[in-house]
C-alpha cells in the first residue's frame, strides 16, 4: 500500500535524482544549470515538507523499491519519526534552494563553473532524504554513504585552497570512522535479528550485552557525525571551508540526520524497554559538554563561519540534553516526562535547522558583500545591507533563546523537563540532571553574548575595511531564501500550541505515551506542558505585549515632535571614533577569555624586535592563539602515540636479512610447538 505522504516523499527524492542527472547534461549553460538545480532543490524541499506534514498526521506506510541487491530490495518506510525529519529537511531545503539561485551566480562568476556543486548538491539532499526513509540497514547505509561522500565533495569545492583540502580530508576520515561504527551497530542488531530489515530488528530480542554494544557503537558513530564533543574536531573546519549554502545544509540538516539515525537505532530498533539506566546519563553528559564547549569555543572565534560551526556543536548538545533526559526518564519509568523531553529535543532540532540555516545564509551574504570571513574586517553593514541585517538579527534572537521566537520555546521546554527531576528515584541521576540544566543555562547566557558579538561587530559600528564600507545588498533570491526561515522562526515561536500536537506523534510512536491533557490543542493561547498551575507560556500574548512595549518606547523617544540628536556611531556623545578605536570581536570577548582561561589555555606569543641598538625597539609582537582544547589535549597525543608505534614497527621492518630469517625461524618453531600441543 502506498499512501500520499510516502508518494510525496519519494517524489522529493526523485526530484533530487533528476536534478543530479540533469545537471551534468546542461553544464555548458551555467545560468540554466544553476537555475534548474537550485529550483529543483527547492521543489524537492517543498515536496519533503508536504510529505512530512502529511506523514505526521497519517498512519505509517511502507514500500519496496525494485532496485538494490538481487536478494535485498530497498525498503522505504514513512512513519512519524521519519516524517518529522522529512519536515526538517524540507523546511530548510526549500529556502536554501531559493537562496542558491542567487548565491551560485557569484560562484559561477568567480569559478566559471558549478559542475561539482550541480552534481553533488542534489545527491547530498537525496542521501539525507534516503537515510530518513530507509527501512532496512542496507538502504540506510547506502544513502548514508551517498550523503557523506557527496558532502565531502561539496566541502572540498574550493579545492585550490590547501586549508580546504585538509578540512576535507579530516572530514572524510571522521565520516568513514563514523560509518564503520554505525555499520558495527547494525551488525550487532543483525546478529540478533538475522535479517537486515528494520521490522525484524525491531522485533528481535537483544541480550543486555548486545544492546549495550549496539548503543555504544551507535552513540559514537552518530555522535561523530553530529559533532558531539569530543568527536567534533572535523566540524569547524569542514563547515567553514564549504560554500555557504552547503554549510547551511550541513549544519542545518546533516547534523540532524545523525540525530535521526541515533533515535532510529536506539529508540526505535533497540527500543525503550532495553534501556540501561546509564545510557541516558551518558547522552546527557555528552550533551552538556558539547553545549558548554561549543559555545565557549564559538565566543572566541573571529571567523564568522567557524563561530557558527562551533555554535552548531552547542545546539547539538542542547538537543542531546533533551534526548538524554528523555532516555533517563523512560528508563526509570516516567514515560510522560520522557515525552516532554523528547518533544523539547525535536522542537529544538527543527528550530536549529531554521535559524542556523538562516545564519549560514546570512554569513554567505555578508561574505559575498565583503569578500571576507573575518569579522574584524566588517562593521556597519546594517546601513548597506538592511534586509540581511534584519534576517540575521531574527536568527540571532532565536538562537539566543529569547521570546517571541522559536529558540525560547524549545529551551523553555528543556528546562521544564529538567525541573521535573525530583520524580527520579536514582539519586545519581537526580543530581546529574540539574547539573546539565545549569550547564544549559550557562550555555544559553554565553550564546546570547556570542550572538550579540556577532551582530554588533558585523552589522553595527563603523566599517573596518573598505570592502565593508562599499558592501552592497544581495539580490532578491538570496533575500527570499533568508526570509522564509525567518517567517517560520516567528511562527514556531508564536504558535507552539499548534505545532506540538503535530510532532507529538513521534513520542507516541516511540514511547507509547502522550501529553494529551496537558497540552490542549483547543487552548491555543496557553502552552502548559506539565500543568497549568506549574508553568505556562502564552506566546501570542508575549508578542502582543512586546509590540505594545516597543510602541510605547518609540512614542516616548520620538513622539510629539521631539528632536532627534544624531552623533557619531558608538562614541557615547564624545568626539567621533575612528574605526580602529571601536570594540573588535577579540576585545568584546576578552573578559570571557579571562574568566574561562582554564578552558581555553590560551597560548601567548610575545616578543620584541630591536633595531640597530638594544634601546631602539623595532617592533613589538603580541599574539594570543586559542586552539581547540580537545584537538590539542586528545587528538594530538593520540596521533603522536600512533605515530610512535608505527615508527617502532617501521624500525623493525628496516632490520637486516638476519632479523627476517630469525622471524621466519621463530615462527616455524612456535607453529611446530603449537601443533604438538
Amino acid at each position, binding site marked *: 500500500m502506498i499512501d500520499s505522504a510516502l508518494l510525496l516523499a519519494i517524489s522529493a527524492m526523485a526530484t533530487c535524482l533528476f536534478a543530479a542527472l540533469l545537471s551534468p547534461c546542461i553544464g555548458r549553460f551555467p545560468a540554466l544549470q544553476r537555475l534548474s538545480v537550485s529550483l529543483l532543490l527547492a521543489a524537492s524541499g517543498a515536496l519533503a515538507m508536504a510529505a512530512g506534514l502529511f506523514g505526521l498526521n497519517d498512519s505509517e506506510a511502507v514500500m519496496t523499491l525494485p532496485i538494490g541487491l538481487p536478494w535485498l530490495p530497498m525498503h522505504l518506510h514513512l512513519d512519524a519519526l521519519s516524517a518529522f525529519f522529512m519536515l526538517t529537511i524540507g523546511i530548510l531545503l526549500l529556502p536554501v534552494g531559493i537562496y542558491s539561485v542567487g548565491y551560485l551566480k557569484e560562484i559561477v562568476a568567480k569559478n566559471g563553473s558549478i559542475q561539482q556543486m550541480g552534481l553533488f548538491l542534489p545527491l547530498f539532499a537525496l542521501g539525507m532524504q534516503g537515510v530518513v526513509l530507509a527501512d532496512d540497514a542496507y538502504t540506510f547505509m547506502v544513502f548514508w554513504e551517498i550523503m557523506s561522500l557527496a558532502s565531502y565533495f561539496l566541502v572540498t569545492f574550493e579545492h585550490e585552497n590547501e586549508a580546504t583540502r585538509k578540512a576535507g580530508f579530516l572530514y572524510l576520515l571522521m565520516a568513514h570512522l563514523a560509518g564503520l561504527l554505525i555499520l558495527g551497530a547494525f551488525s550487532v542488531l543483525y546478529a540478533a535479528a538475522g535479517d537486515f530489515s528494520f521490522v525484524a530488528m525491531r522485533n528481535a530480542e537483544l541480550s543486555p550485552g548486545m544492546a549495550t554494544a549496539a548503543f555504544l557503537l551507535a552513540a559514537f558513530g552518530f555522535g561523530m557525525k553530529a559533532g558531539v564533543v569530543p568527536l567534533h574536531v572535523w566540524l569547524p573546519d569542514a563547515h567553514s571551508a564549504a560554500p555557504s549554502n552547503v554549510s547551511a545544509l550541513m549544519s542545518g540538516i546533516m547534523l540532524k540526520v545523525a540525530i535521526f539515525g541515533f533515535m532510529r537505532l536506539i529508540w526505535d530498533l533497540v527500543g525503550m524497554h532495553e534501556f540501561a539506566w546509564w545510557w541516558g546519563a551518558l547522552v546527557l553528559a555528552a550533551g552538556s559538554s558539547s553545549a558548554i564547549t561549543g559555545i565557549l569555543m564559538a565566543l572566541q572565534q573571529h571567523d564568522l563561519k567557524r563561530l557558527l560551526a562551533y555554535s552548531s556543536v552547542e545546539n547539538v548538545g542542547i538537543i542531546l540534553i533533551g534526548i538524554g533526559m528523555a532516555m533517563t526518564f523512560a528508563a526509570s519509568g516516567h514515560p510522560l516526562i520522557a515525552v516532554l523531553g523528547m518533544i523539547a529535543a525535536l522542537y529544538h532540532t527543527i528550530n536549529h535547522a531554521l535559524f542556523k540555516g538562516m545564519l549560514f545564509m546570512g554569513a554567505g551574504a555578508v561574505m559575498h558583500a565583503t569578500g571576507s570571513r573575518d569579522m574584524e574586517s566588517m562593521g556597519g553593514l546594517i546601513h548597506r545591507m538592511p534586509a540581511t541585517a534584519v534576517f540575521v538579527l531574527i536568527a540571532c534572537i532565536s538562537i539566543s533563546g529569547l521570546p517571541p521566537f522559536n529558540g525560547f520555546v524549545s529551551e523553555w521546554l528543556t528546562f521544564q523537563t529538567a525541573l521535573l527531576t525530583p520524580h527520579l528515584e536514582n539519586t545519581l541521576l537526580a543530581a546529574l540532571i540539574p547539573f546539565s540544566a545549569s550547564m544549559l543555562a550557562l550555555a544559553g547566557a554565553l550564546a546570547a553574548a556570542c550572538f550579540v558579538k556577532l551582530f554588533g561587530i558585523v552589522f553595527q559600528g563603523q566599517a573596518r575595511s573598505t570592502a565593508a564600507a562599499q558592501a552592497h545588498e544581495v539580490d532578491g533570491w538570496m533575500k527570499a531564501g533568508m526570509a522564509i526561515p525567518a517567517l517560520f522562526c516567528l511562527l514556531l515561536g508564536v504558535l507552539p500550541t499548534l505545532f506540538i500536537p503535530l510532532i507529538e506523534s513521534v513520542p507516541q510512536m516511540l514511547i507509547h505515551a502522550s501529553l494529551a491533557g496537558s497540552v490542549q490543542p483547543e487552548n491555543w493561547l496557553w502552552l502548559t506542558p506539565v500543568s497549568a498551575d506549574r508553568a505556562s507560556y502564552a506566546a501570542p500574548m508575549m508578542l502582543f505585549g512586546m509590540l505594545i512595549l516597543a510602541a510605547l518606547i518609540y512614542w516616548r523617544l520620538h513622539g510629539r515632535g521631539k528632536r532627534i540628536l544624531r552623533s557619531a556611531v558608538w562614541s557615547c556623545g564624545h568626539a567621533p571614533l575612528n574605526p580602529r578605536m571601536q570594540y573588535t570581536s577579540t576585545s568584546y570577548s576578552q573578559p570571557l577569555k579571562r574568566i574561562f582561561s582554564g578552558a581555553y589555555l590560551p597560548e601567548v606569543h610575545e616578543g620584541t624586535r630591536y633595531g640597530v641598538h638594544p634601546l631602539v625597539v623595532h617592533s613589538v609582537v603580541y599574539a594570543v592563539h586559542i586552539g581547540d582544547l580537545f584537538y590539542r589535549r586528545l587528538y594530538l597525543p593520540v596521533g603522536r602515540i600512533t605515530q610512535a608505534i608505527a615508527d617502532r614497527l617501521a624500525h623493525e621492518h628496516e632490520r*637486516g636479512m*638476519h632479523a627476517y*630469517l630469525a622471524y621466519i*625461524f621463530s615462527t616455524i618453531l612456535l607453529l611446530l*610447538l603449537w601443533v604438538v600441543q
Partner: protein
Amino acid sequence: MDDVMLQEAISVAASLMLLISFALLAQHRLLSVLHWFAAQGVVLALTTLLVAVISGHYELYFSALMTLLLKGALLPWLLWRIIRKMHVHREVEPLVNMPVTMLIALTLVLICFYVALPIERMSQLVTHNTLAIAMATVFLGMLMMITRKKAITQVIGFLSIENALFFTAVGATHGMPMIVELGVAFDVLIAAIIFGLFFTHMRNTFDSLDLDVIQEKSKR
C-alpha cells in the same frame, strides 16, 4: 636381521649428521666450514648407499653416487673457488658468539625431539627416531644462516638444510622417486651456480660479501 642392521646403521649415520651440523656451527675458519660441509655430503652419500644395500632399491645406488659427486665434491669445490677468487676474509664472523650459539643449538635439538615425539609414536617405519635428528639438522642449518654475517656462510647454511631434507627423505621413506631426486639435484646445482653469480655481482657492486656492509651501502 636386516632390519636391525638397517636401523643401527642409519642411527649411526644420523648421529654423524647431527655431529657434523654442530661442527659446522663451531668452526672459526671458513675453509674448515667448507671441509665439514663436504664431510656432510659424504655422510649423506654413505647413508644413501647403506639404505640402497639393505633395502635393495637399485636406483638408490645411482642416487648415492650422484650425492657423493655433487654434494661431497662439486659444491664444496665451487664454494672453495669462490672464496679463493674473491679473497673472502678467512674468518667466520658470527653475530652471536660461539658458546651461546652452541647453547641455542642444544635447546633446538631438545625441542626437535619433543616435537617429533608424537610422530615417532605413530610411525611404522624402521627409521623412526632419525626424524627428530633430521629436523634438528634443518634447524641448525637455519641457525647458521641467522647467526653468521657472511653471505657465503649463509649459502652453506642453506645447502646444509637441503642436505638435511634429503637425509630425511632417504631415512624416512627410502628415498624419493628418481625423477624428483634428479630434479632436486639439478636445482641445487643451478642454485650454487646462481649463488656464485650473485657473489660476483655483490662483490662488484658493494665491494664486500658482508651482509651488514651491503645493507648499509644500499641504504645510502
